[in-house]
């Protein structure tokens, strides 16, 4: 399996910083913002963005995270069983009248984001929802467009984008890999 590194630790830090600047620029009223990350790595990125925005604007924004497993559109469809990892969502602030920035690591088909938006609306009616992603790899299956993109990654559909983050994986890195022949068949 060949693996190509597309973002190193420093690139990732710079990229997030740029996204934070863009968020602050696009939302002059920073106090009305809230950051919500999608489990697992989106939630980690959300925490980093939250810290960067606090430095930048001086505002301590509300932050939350979402687990979308109850909102998936493929529930019951047979997929390979993976390790059960269970999260709960945490959104303990009022969403109404806020601009919520949803954060995820990779934007691919758009189905995760659709589920996240649906989940979000069960907590309240935000004024606006924006989407920030670290990587946009294309191949959308739904009409969903990010507001903030860390890096556009043109990929083939069969390739994988692997995001590693220090908090969960030990180090920061984004790589693209081609699945081995066996994996491609599975």
């Amino acid at each position, binding site marked *: 399996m060949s693996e190509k590194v597309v973002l190193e630790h420093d690139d990732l830090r710079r990229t997030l910083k740029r996204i934070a600047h863009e968020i602050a620029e696009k939302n002059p009223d920073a106090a009305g913002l809230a950051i919500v990350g999608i*489990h*697992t*790595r989106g939630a980690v990125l959300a925490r980093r963005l939250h810290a960067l925005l606090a430095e930048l604007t001086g505002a301590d924004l509300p932050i939350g995270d979402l*687990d*979308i*497993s*109850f*909102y*998936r*559109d*493929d*529930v*019951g*469809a*047979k*997929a*390979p*069983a*993976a*390790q*059960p*990892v*269970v*999260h*709960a*969502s*945490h959104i303990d602030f009022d969403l109404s009248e806020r601009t919520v920035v949803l954060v995820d*690591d*990779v*934007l*691919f*088909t758009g*189905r*995760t984001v*659709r*589920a996240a938006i*649906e*989940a979000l609306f*069960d*907590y*309240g009616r935000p004024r606006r929802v924006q989407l920030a992603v670290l990587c946009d*790899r294309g*191949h959308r*299956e739904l009409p969903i467009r990010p507001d903030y993109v860390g890096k556009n990654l043109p*990929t083939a*559909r*069969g*390739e*994988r*984008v*692997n*995001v590693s983050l220090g908090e*969960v994986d030990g180090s920061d890195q984004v790589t693209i*890999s081609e*699945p081995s022949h066996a*994996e*491609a068949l*599975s």
Partner: protein
Amino acid sequence: MKHLLAIEQLSREEIEAILDRAESFAEVGRRDIKKVPTLRGRTVVTLFYESSTRTSSSFELAAKRLSADLVSVKAAGSSVDKGESLKDTVATLSAYDPAAIVIRHPYAGAAQMVAEWTEAAVVNAGDGKHEHPSQALLDVYTLRRRLGSLEGTRIWIVGDVLHSRVARSNLIAFQRMGAEVTVCGPPTLIPRGIEELGCEVSYSLERLGEAEVVYALRMQRERMNESFVPSLREYAASFQIDTRRLNPRQLLMHPGPVNRGVELSGEAIDSPQSLIAEQVAAGLVVRMAILYELLAGGERPAPLAKGDGTAEATPIGQPA
């Protein structure tokens, strides 16, 4: 896991997976909108041949909170009164193509039989004196929340063990989670040979102080055809759990419904060490987790998986 028929069939890992899932449903219950769309478009049938408040209402609410369509049938007032057999009733209800059938029946093994007659996932909500797995799961959930882990916890199950499916399921579940279980009651109400399941047996409350958790069982008057105890009053004199016999550090549980003044004193029920209300609350989220596990399980969110993209349709929730 296709059906939930008995705790016996579950490993410790499977029990923990269900309880972890229940934790995230507890979060759903704290929101303004206490409902998720997970089972939208699927049908859940509850079929109760015995009376029940907690189990039936919590399974029904669990199905609704998962957005399933619910058909709830009670034997009393249904065609069962007209003599329809269990098999015919199940065949009738199966015509609606339900995703799950939740059944309570007075005969042991009924749920197992239903599972052979239908395509639906079958949940045993109590079959005679055999098992009541969802009760055991919610009790483990309640204790795990309170104690963190059941490993090495000393639990006494006190009362009418002979007639109790709860005793049987809980004994197995508690032990599987690492607890040390003692069953206690008058000799006529303790099944012979129960120590072969690996528990201790006590015929008096003398050593009750050793327990960290006291799990009292209901005196099942409806299942008593012979005289197992001279009278309920005499039973209460020797085996009632009251605040005098209970020390303040012990936790008290009961599957409900309670015969106040028989197996438990009113004071003990309302004492701060009683977990009875928590058990009822746990029943809802654990039953949501059971339905989720059976109907949406198999496939699970895999946030730590390294990407995807090989399959034709992309499972969502997996990072790309």
